[in-house]
């Protein structure tokens, strides 16, 4: 219900632009502040937390989360697999198998990662391939999935309220998110950059001073868009989906879109009169998000991903959706 307001503001682009200029910029700045404060609290507690770092698997989830937030390495924050993927009795995977299908929270609008193909009405993409691999490991059939198309803002709430088993949604592993949910090992490495129209003179973050930049609600892309104190800050406009950002860019209602290059490439593919510019603003390691109540499922998914990396399926999917294959990210685990 809270989102009704945002939705209305959003798609009504003019209103969205105004509302954001007036108000939404403040929450964006606010969220930056809150991320910063989590980090600083963490560093203050670092010594105490590191003292306990050895007994990871024994400590309660709450303590484990506190530790992750403090001494956090997003690239190595996941649990190691126990050999090949196996559905053991009493595990969360067994429950999913008993239900008959896996419930996955996915994107319906990010070209080449998770999008609803208008030609056949099916959701497909690189993220979706990861989910299909997990479903195949549980059921022996990659089609046993109920896809729940969700917005960026809904990814963590949907895991917390258990309406989805797993989220595959171009989701960056961050220390703040690790305090709420668990992630698989890194399955894709993206870098935040900037998308502008072909005739734009903007070629870096500095060029966006005082300009409107579109991001999605619930993405962490807005927090990177900070210029040194004293300069005019970019005005962050937030909408539900990345394609909504492209609509605003095409209608000249924003100057730029800034997020992961993986997503920007998908937007560029839909409008060749755009270009991706500037250096990488930040590293964005993607993970599949899973409730931290199900460490057995995290290990299982990591085992599936390990298989995908080794048997060539990852490369095949990358080549199909993204481009010339690169080596898959090397998996690192906490323990």
């Amino acid at each position, binding site marked *: 219900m809270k989102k009704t307001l945002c939705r209305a503001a959003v*798609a*009504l682009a003019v209103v969205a632009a105004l509302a954001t200029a007036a108000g939404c910029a403040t929450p964006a700045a606010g969220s930056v502040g809150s991320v910063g404060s989590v980090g600083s609290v963490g560093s203050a507690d670092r010594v105490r937390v590191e003292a306990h770092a050895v007994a990871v698997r024994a400590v309660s989830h709450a303590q484990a989360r506190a530790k992750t937030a403090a001494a956090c390495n997003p690239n190595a924050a996941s649990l190691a697999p126990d050999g090949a993927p196996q559905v053991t009795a009493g595990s969360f995977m067994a429950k999913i198998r008993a239900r008959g299908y896996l419930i996955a929270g996915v994107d319906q609008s990010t*070209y080449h990662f998770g999008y*609803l193909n*208008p030609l*056949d009405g099916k959701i497909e993409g690189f993220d979706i391939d990861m989910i299909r691999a997990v479903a195949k490991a549980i059921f022996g059939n990659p089609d046993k999935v*109920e896809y729940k198309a*969700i917005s960026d803002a809904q990814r963590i709430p949907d895991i917390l309220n258990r309406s989805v088993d797993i989220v595959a949604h171009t989701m960056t592993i961050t220390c703040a998110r690790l305090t709420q949910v668990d992630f698989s090992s890194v399955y894709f490495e993206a870098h935040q950059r900037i998308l502008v129209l072909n005739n734009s003179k903007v070629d870096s973050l500095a060029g966006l001073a005082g300009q409107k930049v579109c991001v999605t609600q619930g993405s962490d892309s807005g927090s990177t868009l900070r210029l040194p104190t004293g300069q005019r800050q970019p005005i962050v406009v937030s909408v539900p989906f990345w394609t909504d950002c*492209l*609509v605003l860019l095409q209608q000249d209602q924003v100057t730029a879109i800034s997020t992961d290059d993986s997503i920007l490439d998908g937007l560029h593919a839909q409008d060749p009169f755009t270009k991706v510019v500037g250096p990488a603003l930040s590293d964005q390691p993607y993970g599949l998000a899973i409730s931290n109540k199900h460490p057995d499922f995290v290990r299982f998914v990591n085992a599936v991903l390990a298989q995908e990396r080794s048997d060539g399926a990852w490369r095949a999917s990358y080549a199909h959706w993204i481009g010339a294959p690169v080596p898959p990210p090397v998996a690192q685990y906490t323990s």
Partner: protein
Amino acid sequence: MVSTATHLGGQHQLQSRRFRLDLRTTPARMRLLLAVLVLTNVAWGALAAFTASQYASAASAVVTTREPLSLDALQIYRRLSDANDAATTAFLTGGLEPAAVRQRYLADITAAAAGVEDATALGGAGQGATADDLGTLTTGIPIYAGEIETARADNRLGLPLGAAYLREASALMRGTLLPAAQSLYDAEYASLGATGAQATGLPLITITAAAGVGLGYGLYRASRWLSRRTRRVFNLGFLAAALALVISLGWLAFAYANGRSSLLTAQARGSTPVAALARVDIAVQRAHADESLTLIDNSGDDSYQQDYLGLQRSLGPGAGTLLTDAQQATAGSKAAPAVTAMVADARGWYQAHASLRVLDDTGKHADAVQSALGTAPGNAGTWFGQLTGNLATGIAVDQAAFDSSARAGSSAFNDTEAGVIAAALIMAAACAWGLSRRIVEYR
């Protein structure tokens, strides 16, 4: 009235000068009486004609302007809502859109634009809020249509960007255009009521009738005075004038009573039921859009489903709900059977919708879509089709009832104006003739 009074004073002065008037003589008094009677008769004739024309023009405005305008406004709303429904449906089906759905969208958007044009031409423009609403629609419909076409082009290329344009168009429709159309309809319906009240109102006819009775009493007193002076019981001229007065008063009263009763019937059996059905229609259209959007726009929250459930509650049936209100408003009108059927359709639709949501929530999205769009028995789409079909029938039937009654009410005032003017002239002439014959006797 003021000018008549000055006129009277002028005449009086003129006479005073000419005759060096001594009002103690009978012929002088008769001359004065003659002048006064002629002037009052003509004055009453003017008042009666004014009254007749006021009622006639209000009644004809109901039929020729207000009713078409409120009907236009309702059609604009229904067409726009249906256009958005068709556009959403075309997207929901996936793949190539069915030709019939595309045709429906084009017909709707064209009819809506034509309706806005009509409403503007018929004089809806120029008044504050109504002009704003028409302005919003005039500029908004092409923008909406443009976004729909962009969405369609992107869909044809297989790009998810099409869905974003559809979302934006849909939000423009639901957030701006439909509210403007609804406020336009509310304003036009209020104007229809106000003009109807003018055509059936009591004050003016009461004043005119009272003046007529006063004039009759004056004639009676004058005739009494004359009979005392002339020792004749009847004056033929006065008798003729009194007869003409009674006829014109009767005519006026009959026309008014006739027109009023027809217009009140038109309201009770026509415009009031249509308005109640229109409110049902607006809620039903919106609920249907919610149903489609729960299947398309999965932004993760359930606000569309909540909106649907809220509309289901306000539609009813049940005390104080829109459907029950419509049942009461249409009781005795020709639409009553259609409305009874609508209540059953609505119940069936709610059930089918609940099953559709269960399907969608348990991973059977394709089956849910099939139910929403389907025409098989028990499908949500089937119930919705029946419901809107019965709604359209009910609105058409009661609109026709309104139309015929309102036309009858409007024609009740035909020729009344000319009739009372003629009667007043006859009265003035008869009085003058009757008196002048007596005046001559004093020469």
